[in-house]
């Protein structure tokens, strides 16, 4: 086994994965880690176009047999993404070591849905305060270890991930505060909060001065001098939203 990859050997699972992404002819699907093309074949039946990325050139012979609507890139997925390719869905049996870095990378990519096979443990991580700012994750089901060659050593799952809309559009102020704080890790908490609160007001078409925002923050008794740690962000943003709703 190369590159910590477990190859899917169950056609029913492959079909269900393609269904989970609600794949249609209008879709351009990015597949990461095409391997021998086992899932690629199923995607190609439903999608208009498939962009299959595989880093291991030893699969070249297998991937040559794929239908015409499949473009194969033998390259690192990060380099392919750097080329600004266009796609709207992602389907993959992810190598476990790539799950977290790619989930972080896709925060900045424009896509609608991901359908992934990944370690169950990582599905739980997708529900943490950081990833849940950007994604809604759904467990489609747990998978038999024997659905893979070699069998996986830990529990694996089929997961659907939908990109969340911008929190300001959804008036989800708590998520907006969390997002703002995660995206400005080196700023002082009081400055980040002040900016975030002013922007919330702006999004509602209302004016709020920085002094008025400071006034709100100063009444919360937060420790404001240090850059806020990632673990403290959920409680800080929740505290603000709770306080403001009183």
């Amino acid at each position, binding site marked *: 086994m190369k590159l910590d990859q477990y190859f899917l050997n169950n056609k029913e699972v492959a079909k269900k994965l393609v269904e989970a992404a609600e794949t249609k002819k209008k879709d351009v699907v990015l597949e990461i880690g095409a391997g021998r093309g086992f899932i690629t074949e199923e995607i190609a039946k439903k999608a208009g176009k498939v962009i299959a990325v595989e880093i291991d050139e030893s699969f070249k012979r297998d991937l040559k047999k794929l239908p015409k609507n499949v473009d194969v890139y033998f390259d690192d997925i990060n380099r392919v993404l750097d080329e600004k390719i266009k796609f709207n869905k992602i389907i993959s049996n992810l190598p476990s070591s790539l799950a977290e870095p790619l989930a972080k990378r896709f925060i900045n990519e424009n896509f609608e849905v991901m359908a992934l096979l990944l370690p169950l443990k990582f599905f739980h991580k997708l529900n943490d305060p950081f990833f849940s700012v950007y994604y809604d994750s759904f467990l489609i089901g747990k998978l038999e270890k024997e659905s893979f060659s070699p069998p996986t050593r830990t529990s694996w799952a089929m997961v659907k991930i*939908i990109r969340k809309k911008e929190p300001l559009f959804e008036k989800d102020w708590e998520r907006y505060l969390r997002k703002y704080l995660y995206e400005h890790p080196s700023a002082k908490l009081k400055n980040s909060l002040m900016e975030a609160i002013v922007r919330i007001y702006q999004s509602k078409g209302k004016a709020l001065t920085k002094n008025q925002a400071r006034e709100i923050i100063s009444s919360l008794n937060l420790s404001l001098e240090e850059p806020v740690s990632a673990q403290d962000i959920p409680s800080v943003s929740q505290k603000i939203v709770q306080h403001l709703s*009183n």
Partner: protein
Amino acid sequence: MARGDVWENFSYHFNDTPYNKEKDYLKHYDDKILIVSNFEEPYLCAENKCLVLNSPQADSDNTLKEIKSSLERNEKVMITAQAISAPYNQYDGMRYHLLSKKRNYPKTEGEKIISNYKLELIKQWPEENLKIYFIEKD
């Protein structure tokens, strides 16, 4: 803008019952049976097939039968943390209902039901203490 106005404008936009978060999340699961508390029922059961705990119609034996037969049909069976803890710690609007805060009995109906099964956590909202689980086959 006076300080009073700032507070007033903010507070209006921060009110949403936590049950609506569950409702939005559950929309994405098809073919499921959902076990909820009677406090969640008005929010979650219009669009989902539900078994309601802590309601006058609740029947533990029937609930167990339904869970068993749904699992045999390979349907998704989901239970909320509110159903497990009912009648305690139930949201009424934004906060726990006052009378649901004091726990008098050692084991709830939901706790008895889940003692027969393994649960898989699929979603949680830690600040509101809301969770949704899959009930798994033995």
